[in-house]
């Protein structure tokens, strides 16, 4: 497998409401091994052919699941994430949008000593094309190949995956790290996974204004980078002090500007695309070196 997820990954779904059921069905269609779901009181039943369990621990015991996808609404999401971490699930992917920052700080503190990798929240999930999709992305935009792809956004990720696919640049693993200010697997950590992945030949890093995850990713690649990378930063024209849709996409004072991120990548020798449409060309150019 590439990174995080592959053909053998066994997934449970936390939160099989309308959205959870819709996407569980599409994950199964893609070939993802969806082995169970959790809902307190529903243990022993099944939903859409998915066996249900009362707790995450029971689901893990019964199914051998090593991954979970969380659709639980924001007010209860921290509890769902902590339950998955407590059950020592290796990979937890949180789709939920709108989780309070304080809750994510607690989750992040627990993660410091846990065996779990959390991707998200407020992201589209992750996909290893042709093998497994744990997320809500439209699978047809993705194709198998050697481009590792890290992104803070959802739709923009599909757009860029589509551009890469049309240009004949398949992807190893795409990781949507999420648009919140506090996420489980920040951009630099996701970049590190792909940098160390033998199946990944080049890395595309899609960032946006807010925070300094891109600067840290650039710094990491400058010192540890083993393969070419290309970056794009969304929000170059956004004014300071305005939150652009994502909770994390805000320039505060002189922090989190697009200029700072672009400069950091350029100083690390990583070309920065002016528009998503330039990314495939830059990747091809980088790979030919």
């Amino acid at each position: 497998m590439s990174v995080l997820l592959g053909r053998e990954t066994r997934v449970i779904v936390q939160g099989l409401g309308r959205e959870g059921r819709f996407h569980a069905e599409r994950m199964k269609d893609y070939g993802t091994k969806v082995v169970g779901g959790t809902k307190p009181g529903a243990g022993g039943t099944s939903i859409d052919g998915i066996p249900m369990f009362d707790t995450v621990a029971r689901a893990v015991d019964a199914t051998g699941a090593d991954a979970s996808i969380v659709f639980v609404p924001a007010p209860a999401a921290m509890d769902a994430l902590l339950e998955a971490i407590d059950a020592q699930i290796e990979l937890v992917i949180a789709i939920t949008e709108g989780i309070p920052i304080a809750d994510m700080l607690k989750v992040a503190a627990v993660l410091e000593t846990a065996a779990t990798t959390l991707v998200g929240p407020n992201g589209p999930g992750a996909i290893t094309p042709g093998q497994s999709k744990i997320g809500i992305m439209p699978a047809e935009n993705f194709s198998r190949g050697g481009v590792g792809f890290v992104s803070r956004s959802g739709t923009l990720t599909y757009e860029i995956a589509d551009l890469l696919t049309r240009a004949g640049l398949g992807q190893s693993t795409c990781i949507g790290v999420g648009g919140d200010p506090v996420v489980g697997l920040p951009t630099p950590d996701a970049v590190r996974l792909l940098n160390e992945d033998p199946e990944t030949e080049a890395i595309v890093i899609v960032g946006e204004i807010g925070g300094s995850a891109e600067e840290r990713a650039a710094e990491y690649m400058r010192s540890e980078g083993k393969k070419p990378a290309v970056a794009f930063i969304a929000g170059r024209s956004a004014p300071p002090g305005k939150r652009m849709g994502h909770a994390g996409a805000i320039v505060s004072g002189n922090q989190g500007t697009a200029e700072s991120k672009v400069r950091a990548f350029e100083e690390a020798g990583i070309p920065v695309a002016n528009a998503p449409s330039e990314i495939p060309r830059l990747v091809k150019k980088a790979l030919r070196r």
Partner: protein
Amino acid sequence: MKLHEFQAKQILARAGIPIPDGHVAVSPQEAEAAAKAIAAPVAVKAQVHAGGRGKAGGIKVAKSPGEAKAAAGAILGMEIKGLRVEKVYVERAADVASELYLGITLDRDRRRPVVMLSTVGGVDIEEVAAARPEAIARGWPSPLLGLLPFEARALVFAAEVAPAQREAVADIARRLYRVYGETDATLVEINPLFVQKDGSVLAGDAKLDVDDNALFRLPDLAKLKEVSADEEAEEKARALGFSYVQLDGDVGIIGNGAGLVMATLDAVRNAGGRAANFLDVGGGAKEAVVKAALEIVLSNPRVRSVMINIFGGITRGDEVAKGILDVIEAHPPRVPLVVRLSGTEAEAGRRLLVDAPLESRETMDEAAAEAVRLAKEPARA
């Protein structure tokens, strides 16, 4: 969500942090009565959600109730950064010996709260951070444990707070951390934290920003939410599940997904134009959604063209196209539309739009260029 100083101070006081005696006033008469009740020199302070009140003339010292009345008369109704002052806070003037800074916010890189303490208080802390970073002591408490006594002491020593105030400042820091936790604050700040000539310490100003995503569990704070005139469209959009930000250009933008919409604004700028707004309709752009989004974007009189950029994922391009057609047939928009559909069933969607009174483009860059060109054309009759 931002709170006013007087609201933040009430919360600090309930947490046991000393604040000056103060009263809210909405008229010069009320300000006069408040000053009379305080029976000492007072500060009359504009209550608006904007920084730099002092520089804008929104804070005046008054030595008598008469002066307080006159000060309130001057401040009430004035505009600070475009916001009209509706309330003043009248509080006992402190007997200031020195000023400290104490604040707690989120450190995104460390994924922890950061507590900042400095003996350089009363000024813009970002300026201090840029010019003299060593003048700010920082601590990163565990969000699971809160600010522990030893951590508060370490901060006080690191900031070189005078020995006589160490205990009081450490105590206030721990109480402020509890406020940070209990109010789901994204920022809580006491700047300045006054040291008075008698050695006592009290909050000179207070700033408290609350995480909007936590308002569901903070009903008392949620009630304090105020929507200013320029935020009305943003609030209306929020109620519909959109995220909308008004900007200062003339190309209206509608798209799905925050990152894609940001990239669309950038594409407009790359094409030599300026976006009038950010509008993310989220998932499932059906007819009703497109209609509501168009209404919000067109409510901005500066808009001279609109670019709709939809990447169909789970949503199909043909369904989006039908939604757009239905809307413009029923309500022909006052400005030209440029539509760019991509992703699932985008070609079918574009075919549906061939004869429609709008421009359809295949790529984001082409659509942005066309929208910018149309915005620069003389207005249609």
